[in-house]
């Protein structure tokens, strides 16, 4: 069974985000970039499926600038077999990303497509669902467990009230939540080997997709900061303040 994993290059999650002074966006100049954490979980899940003998080949795809090849190489070092880079310097929004991925799905015909549930930059939580809609596949979003059985996959999903398990026909789309697995680190020998793994590059035009964005960002601002309040001496003072000053109890 072939598994396709989509990964995104984003700001490293440890970096403190700063809004540009002209309010046009977030400052990404000279900032450390990395694979989106939810995408790391997607790669790890695919590798575990291969280790279990369920997956036979893992293809990793990323959409973005030339530098996104670093994240593809990272995925190859973690155990993916082959990479596809859809190279563009333009901003690609979720719907257009889903259309590009649909074109890749049509070429590669994977049985399972695994994506992170959202990227930590735009926080949209859309691409996997949109890809599933465009390809007519079932979707197991926010997955905490993925079990492939014959021509079906059972996905346990993290929902607001607890957990829900759904059964999907293959091919299907799965998006990962935090507790699906704990991603491994790439070993040095595997990082070296990853450099020799095949990586194809193509453009959105090669895939016949128009990536012109539908949403325009008018401005980006820093959030209103909260001021520290007062320290209270003891519990009695706290309860008094909550009752008589803040009037919230």
């Amino acid at each position, binding site marked *: 069974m072939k598994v396709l994993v989509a990964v995104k290059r984003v700001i490293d999650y440890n970096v403190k*985000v700063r*809004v540009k002074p002209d309010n046009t966006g*977030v400052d990404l100049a000279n900032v450390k970039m990395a694979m989106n954490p939810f995408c790391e979980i997607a790669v790890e899940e695919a590798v575990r499926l291969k280790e279990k003998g369920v997956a036979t080949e893992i293809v990793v795809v990323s959409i973005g600038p030339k530098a996104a090849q670093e994240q593809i190489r990272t995925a190859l070092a973690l155990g993916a077999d082959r990479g596809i880079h859809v190279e563009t310097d333009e901003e690609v929004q979720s*719907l257009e990303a889903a259309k590009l991925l649909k074109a890749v799905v049509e070429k590669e015909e994977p049985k399972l497509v695994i994506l992170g549930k959202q990227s*930590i*930059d*735009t*926080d*949209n*939580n*859309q*691409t996997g*669902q*949109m*890809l599933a*809609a465009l390809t007519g*596949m*079932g*979707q197991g*979003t*926010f997955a905490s467990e993925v079990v492939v059985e014959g021509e079906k996959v*059972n996905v346990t*999903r*993290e*929902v*607001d*009230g*607890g*957990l*829900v*398990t*759904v*059964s*999907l*026909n293959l091919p*299907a789309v799965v998006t990962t939540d935090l507790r699906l697995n704990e991603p491994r680190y790439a070993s040095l020998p595997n990082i070296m080997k990853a450099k020799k793994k095949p990586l194809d590059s193509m453009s959105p035009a090669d895939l016949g997709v128009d990536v012109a964005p*539908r*949403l*325009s*960002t*008018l*401005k*980006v*601002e*820093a*959030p209103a900061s*909260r001021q*520290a*309040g*007062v*320290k*209270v001496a*003891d*519990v*009695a003072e*706290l*309860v008094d303040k*909550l009752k008589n000053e803040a009037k*919230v*109890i």
Partner: protein
Amino acid sequence: MSILVIAEHDNSSLKQATLNVVAAAKAVGGDVDVLVAGENCGAVGEAAAKIEGVNKVLVADNAAYGHFLAENLSLLVSDLGKNYGHIFAAAGTTGKDFMPRVAALLDVAQISDIVRVESEDTFVRPIYAGNAIATVKSSDGIKVVTVRPTAFDPVAGEGGSASVETVDGAQDAGVSSFVSEQLAESDRPDLGSAGIVISGGRGMQNGENFQMLEKVADLLGAAVGASRAAVDAGFVPNDMQVGQTGKIVAPQLYVAVGISGAIQHLAGMSDSKVIVAINKDEEAPIFQVADYGLVADLFEAVPQLEEELKKVL
């Protein structure tokens, strides 16, 4: 153009978040219709008809929608939604699941998790886990939008008298089916909509100690939450997690107990009206956002809090 709001419910009762989403739709202007899609959900349709300011309620009652499978719901909503200028749903796990699918079927972008309506095509939403706030404008004919419920004051759930229409037929994509669910049972209010939330962090040391918080929560009618550290340490289940990767809450009162205040946690609760922090480390970052800070050992302070509250409540 009118607005279609997709009701959030469990087939028997309407979820509070629907009232917040209707409020967001009202901020756009125009008629607001509400779709209740589910199975044996007639009572929800009746409840939705009583929501203040709703024009019409559509009820699609069929087994295909009983478990809110995104594959089926999105076919229904994209079909009905063609007649509307906007489609709004709560940005809970149900809305996040089916709404992008609706958008893709309509070939439009989705605007996720809005916290403010600027105009009929311009919305404000947090990005980078709330570390930046973006104002975005849509050029699409239909705006598919998910709404962060806590960012909008709810409309009244009573007083309306909308007409109720039945949507016939069922749209079953035939690619997915429900297997099972494990939903947490609790008499306490839902974390996402509670007026008061009391959360514990790694400082609680173990799951049993959360009983101290539960006692206080029951006095206050509060929900109990937890930081990611407490969830990852296995103290409590993950549906209690407040934070960037858990639930976003904005209650009237948020009490953080033994929580240091990692960015990931602050992203989930810093819109609360009043924040109280109880922590023995006076350098803990949580105190930088707390309106009232108490530097104390939680194992002494929380039982005292329970006693003091008994006196005044």
